[in-house]
């Protein structure tokens, strides 16, 4: 098994993002977000519960399609 620290992985990935001109913003994140079309009913239910739990305590859930 390979081992890497989270810090080293972050530096590696951020260096690559800069090299390829990747910008982390809402548009790029949205393009990567699962469409939700192939989710199972159980997964949809799980995501619905996550959203409900988050809203119940005033947290903003991550955007997801389900």
């Amino acid at each position, binding site marked *: 098994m390979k081992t*890497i*620290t989270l810090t080293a*992985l972050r530096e590696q990935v951020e260096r690559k993002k800069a090299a390829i001109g990747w910008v982390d913003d809402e548009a790029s994140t949205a393009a990567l977000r699962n*469409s939700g079309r192939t989710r199972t009913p159980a997964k949809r239910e*799980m995501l619905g*519960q996550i959203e409900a739990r*988050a809203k119940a305590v005033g947290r903003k859930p991550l955007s997801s399609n389900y």
Partner: protein
Amino acid sequence: MAIPDTYLALLDILADAFARYETATGHCAILVGGGAVAVQTQGAFMSGDLDLYAPSDAALETALLHSGFVREERRGRLAGGFYHPEFPEYGVEAISGQLFDGRADRTRLIRVLFHETKGIVIPSFEDMIADRLGQYAASSQRDHSRLAQAQLLFRLAEDLDVSYLRVRIADEGGNFDLLEGKEAGGV
């Protein structure tokens, strides 16, 4: 977006559960699916549901419960989902079967350390690229986000073993050429 602090805090707790699981079974639990992609892209892709693979469901459940996770109840029945009360905006679920149907080279797993010894284990970039391409190929409605995730992982990875990647993509029924945008749209 950068990985949210809450996500990192949840992974820190998950690392505790992984350590408990490994101590109890001698095997490692593995963060797979979108959760692994979130770590490998450092938040470019994010997912609120984290899928875990572990050979023993019972030992994984014990480890999660001892680390503060609670069972999620779905429509009156107990299912395989868990969440941590401090981070209700995330869910954790155990997946069954073998890791990538037993086709992945487990020596390529990556242990991402948060502290000196504690961390989480994720698949190799090669295996996650193949997984995403396989899911893209398998979906009748062509979820292009899966292709975009594979293409981004391909561009972010360092020292990819292309020979292994080609084999794994073939295993998963994907198309290597899509990574370079030779078909369909690029990232």
